[in-house]
């Protein structure tokens, strides 16, 4: 932007344009952000957006913001951020460029703002053209009486040969799997022993060997005897813990003796 532009810009800003800019204040809520406001302000320049005077636009915007402040209209923060940026841009445009200054030139920044405005304007026009197109349900129509597509559900069951073989193997080897299952026949559980001992507790007034308490049929075959002995031993430990009986053993591997606890 040359100096001559600046002078002409100053001159161009007629009274009527100032009034127009002020009139916008009333409508501040109607703007969709600072870019929208700038785009509206730019129209007062009555030039192609590509030839817009960004300096003049910045001044119009700052004027608008000052007016709003004077009228105590609260402006959203982004309007103020834009104002600060435009004030900076304005000063950069007015001052001769500082050769030591790094970064973008004032002209670059101004050109970018012009680009943003032009792009927003282009999108507005595109939106208008889009909405002006023939629209479904307004200008052209879909079938009004669609015919129902009947969905029929067909279930197909499938199985592979492997499935079949596995199933058969599963059935045929049920017996062979038995060794893997605990054979309950020769097992006396602690619960069983506990139940049994509870019922017999009344008879245990005197010390007596645990072995003599083994149930009938569980005292001969070695596997059964071991199982029932282990179960009963666990049961008396539990009962001792509850304070129902007393246990004693003369020495290691000596017979274990039990007696009902007094008062029980």
């Amino acid at each position, binding site marked *: 932007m040359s100096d001559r532009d600046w002078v002409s810009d100053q001159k161009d800003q007629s009274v009527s344009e100032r009034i127009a800019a002020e009139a916008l204040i009333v409508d501040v809520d109607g703007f969709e952000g600072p870019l929208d406001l700038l785009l509206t302000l730019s129209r007062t320049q009555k030039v192609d957006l590509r030839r817009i005077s960004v300096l003049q636009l910045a001044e119009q915007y700052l004027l608008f913001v000052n007016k709003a402040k004077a009228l105590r209209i609260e402006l959203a923060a982004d309007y103020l951020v834009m104002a600060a940026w435009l004030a900076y841009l304005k000063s950069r445009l007015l001052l001769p460029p500082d050769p030591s200054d790094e970064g973008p030139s004032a002209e670059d920044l101004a050109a970018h703002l012009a680009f943003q405005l032009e792009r927003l304007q282009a999108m507005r026009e595109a939106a208008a053209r889009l909405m002006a197109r023939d629209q479904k349900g307004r200008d052209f*129509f*879909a*079938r*009004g*009486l669609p*015919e*129902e*597509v*009947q*969905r*029929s*559900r*067909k*279930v*197909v*069951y*499938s*199985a*592979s*040969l*492997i*499935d*079949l*073989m*596995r*199933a*058969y*193997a*599963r*059935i*045929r*080897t*049920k*017996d*062979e*799997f038995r*060794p*893997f299952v605990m054979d309950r026949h020769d097992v006396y559980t602690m619960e069983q022993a506990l139940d049994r001992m509870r019922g017999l507790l009344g008879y245990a007034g005197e010390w007596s060997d645990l072995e003599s308490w083994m149930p009938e049929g569980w005292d001969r075959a070695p596997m059964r005897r071991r199982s029932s002995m282990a179960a009963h031993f666990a049961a008396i430990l539990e009962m001792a813990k509850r304070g129902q009986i007393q246990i004693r053993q003369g020495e290691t591997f000596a017979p274990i003796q039990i007696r009902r606890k007094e008062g029980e």
Partner: protein
Amino acid sequence: MTEPQEQSLFDAPPIAEQERMVEAILFASTEPLSVADLARRMPHGCDPAEAIAYLRRRYEGRGVRLVRVGDAWAFRTAPDLGHLMQKEVVENRKLSRAAIETLAIIAYHQPVTRAEIEEIRGVAVSRGTIDQLIEMEWIRFGRRRMTPGRPVTFVVTEIFLDHFGLESARDLPGLKDLRAAGLLDNRPLPGAALSSDEDEDQTGQSELFED
């Protein structure tokens, strides 16, 4: 008062255009429309009945037809294409465990009675399971067993063999094959297993091949 009528008669669109109009209106309408309905929506001076006649001829033999519904007209799919209006959703499901076990027993022991299946599985076989397998055409009724009560037997079908890629039920792998294939990972109890393998031969597989 007659002037506008006359004028609009004059302005009535050509019949080809009226045909387009009727076509569009009937296409978009949510219900069949009578000639009067059409006339009300078309420019003055139009002759919907004539346009319909043309349109109907145009759609003769097409995929959709212009049909009369009472006093009204509507587009409808040609009846011979009705089958296209059906979308078959095929749902693939795995056979239930009960079904596949029953099927396996029938395949390995056929012909086999229901009581025998139950004995082998150790569980009652539901009517539904048998029905399902029959419906799938994987099993069918075999000959009646010549024992008291003459119970029916079940055998597998050609469709079953085809599905599983077997030439005959004899090709079904035996327990030994299953074990070799790693499908059985338990060791047979010494002496116990071999005898149970033997009865495979006894359970009537031979009978199947007699018919």
